[in-house]
């Protein structure tokens, strides 16, 4: 018998048992306390395992990364801000940062805009579910798989020879010279973002479509009866009501574009000015053996994402307050 089966059994049966045991134990313990204190202490004790996990797997690594980012490549000596200075003074990393900003703007616009467009357009047609399934399908493909697929799409052969890439084959059939999609900057970064948009548009579409279905039909009906055109209905009623959802989806896309890695790693590995910070971080850590610099990049990435998260949390709170 595979020894892993035993381990699996312990995990599948043992872990829930231990948790239930913990909660029962906590209840036993609470009985010893005076009744007035019980409701105060209980939530904390119930939360304790989750908090412990959070500290061990989230807070501790974050703090350790912060510490590492101030140390040298062997994590021995404190080097102050040298790693950050490296990040903000090296052409390669600044280029990566710039590309990430392009990713952030373009991917968010393409994925959210495309998702919204599809969601609105297919909202009232018969083949809605088929159309949505097709758009949604790429999300089920792994990023590495998608990158490999698109490498075939973007493949380039010398002008005058048989074009094996889909896009250049199409261009060739109408007599246009092949384009080196992944070589020419800044076209190559755009090409990579298109791959990401191909994957994420489906995600945005599904969420936005669900929100669209939530808008009450009476509201739209009333507007139409009052003589509003379809465009006006969309601009003055649908869009404002979708706004909270769009904000959530856009936030997700912003974070996704800041974390962009797989597609770049597989398709260009950062060559020809397509570098992004996550790929740079990977290289510093795993290829160059520079944990300090990699940690500094991780912290910069975190610092970029935190405001977006905070904005999102605040919006959420405001909405809750209105309700």
């Amino acid at each position, binding site marked *: 018998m595979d020894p892993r089966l035993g381990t699996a059994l312990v995990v599948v049966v043992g872990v829930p048992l231990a948790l239930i045991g913990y909660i029962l134990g906590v209840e036993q313990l609470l009985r010893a306390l005076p009744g007035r204190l019980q409701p105060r202490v209980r939530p904390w004790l119930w939360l304790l395992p989750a908090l412990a996990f959070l500290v061990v797997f989230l807070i501790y690594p974050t703090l350790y990364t912060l510490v590492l980012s101030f140390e040298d*490549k*062997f994590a021995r000596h404190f080097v102050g801000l040298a790693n950050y200075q490296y990040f903000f003074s090296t052409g390669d990393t600044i280029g990566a940062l710039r590309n990430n900003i392009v990713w952030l703007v373009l991917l968010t616009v393409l994925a959210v805009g495309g998702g919204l467009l599809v969601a609105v357009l297919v909202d009232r047609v018969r083949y809605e579910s088929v159309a949505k399934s097709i758009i949604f399908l790429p999300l089920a493909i792994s990023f590495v798989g998608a990158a490999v697929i698109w490498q075939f799409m973007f493949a380039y052969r010398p*002008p005058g020879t048989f074009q094996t890439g889909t896009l250049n084959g199409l261009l060739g059939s109408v007599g246009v010279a092949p384009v*080196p999609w992944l070589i020419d900057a800044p076209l190559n970064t755009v090409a990579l973002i298109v791959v990401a948009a191909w994957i994420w548009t489906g995600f945005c579409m599904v969420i936005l479509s669900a929100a669209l279905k939530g808008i009450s039909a009476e509201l739209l009906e009333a507007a139409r009866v009052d003589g509003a055109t379809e465009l006006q209905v969309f601009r003055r009623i649908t869009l404002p009501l979708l706004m909270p959802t769009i904000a959530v989806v856009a936030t997700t896309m912003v974070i996704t574009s800041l974390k962009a890695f797989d597609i770049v790693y597989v398709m260009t590995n950062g060559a020809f000015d397509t570098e992004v910070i996550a790929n740079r971080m990977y290289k510093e850590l*795993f290829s160059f053996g520079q944990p300090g610099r990699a940690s500094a990049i991780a912290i910069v990435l975190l610092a970029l994402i935190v405001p977006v998260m905070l904005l999102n949390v605040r919006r959420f709170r405001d909405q809750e307050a209105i309700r």
Partner: protein
Amino acid sequence: MTEVPLGIEHGGYSQRSTLCTKSPVDDLERSYRVNHRMGNGIRRGVTLLAVAGLLVAACTSGTSTTPSAASATGVPAASGSPAASSGQIGGKVTVIGTWGGSEQDSFLAMVKPFEDQTGIKVEYTGTRDLNAVLTTGVASGILPDLAGLPGPGQMAEYARSGALKPLNDVLDLSQYKADTAPALVDLGTVDGKITGVFIKAAVKGLIWYNPGVYTAGAPTSWDDLRAKAKAAAAAVAGGKTKPWCVGLESGAASGWPGTDWIEDFVLRQAGPDIYDKWVAGKQKWTSPEIKAAFQAFGQVVSPDDVYGGPKTVVTTNFGDGGNPLFTTPPGCIFHHQASFITDFFKKQGGAKDGQFDFFPFPDINPQYAGAVEGAGDLFGMFNDTPQARALMKYLVTAEAQSIWVGRGGALSANTKVTNYPDAISKRSAAILANAKIFRFDASDLMPQAMNDAFWKAILDYTVDPTKLDSILTNLDTIQASAYGG
């Protein structure tokens, strides 16, 4: 064992291996496994005492069993060939390398007799990103038993951190040194200990051509070569044939074939001393010697001289780079690549024996005539198991290396191997053996951050040669931080 242990577990392993080498193999194996598993479990907070306790336990369990098993000592006997050992060891050995496709087939063919003889299963995994796999492996302690190493520079780092095990008591040293070219033995040695061995070798900087197209013979100088290439290209009907074919794409390592070009120019224009300084990080990239090498390469990949133009160069895989030599009409006259490319010509380019031949890269500065650049596939041992030792011992033998050599595409690091399948590989082996000035692939010797930047620089320069100065300045910046602490 004077290695510097990074963590206690490394020191513990190597000590155990020397203390217990005489114990019967079965028990050694079992005790190793116990020890190894414990080692993983206690990796972080272990005390020296606990390790010492394990060592004692491992050794006592080894010596307390019947000595009859000792005769079946699984490590092959002095000759190193598996045939010499009567016993079956069994078990498995994990190997990671960069070979895929036909190279992977050749490696598997190479270890097949070993598997049959010893009953050890060789579990090979090929990866495109060896460096990342090994760096994470060294950090986490989860490593293959044997692995290909990216180059001597990385090897030395792994050896000094204690991750790589020295091979002095694994190999039959006198036999190994007698069989192997001294330059290769030196390259595999760290602090006086043999740490890496070469599975196969290659001569770099060979100029390949199709004898059905180019018949003007070996040029005497670089200028002569250029003139002959232009003349031959112009002579082909159709006017589309270019002097050169170049392919630089190679996944995460894209750009490396261009580094070979630069190295060939540096070695032949500026000489071995500048070359060595450059490898060691003491020669600025912006210096005239290195810049001249880039400019010479720039002539080769200029739109007028290279098949398909620079954009084709950077998108063509190195293995397919020479294929236009064999089309009708030919796309180019010459292809610059190491000796291993013959295998690609035949399997991916559709070329037959007799359709390709080579001459060595011509001398440029007569002062440095006869300089040759070589490379090889380094192999090291990360886990000291009887199976790993047996395979390591087997791989350096003439018997093993002759298998790959016989299948084509490889030169042997072992000088006893002579069964080269054709005149071409015989000639390249002779070049390797008779080099007046021998230098190892410079980029493979540089720190990884430098090497990676060098690859990128090749790609950037090929696409936009006007950026040369800023590219070289950037390389200088990286040089300043990539070397040393």
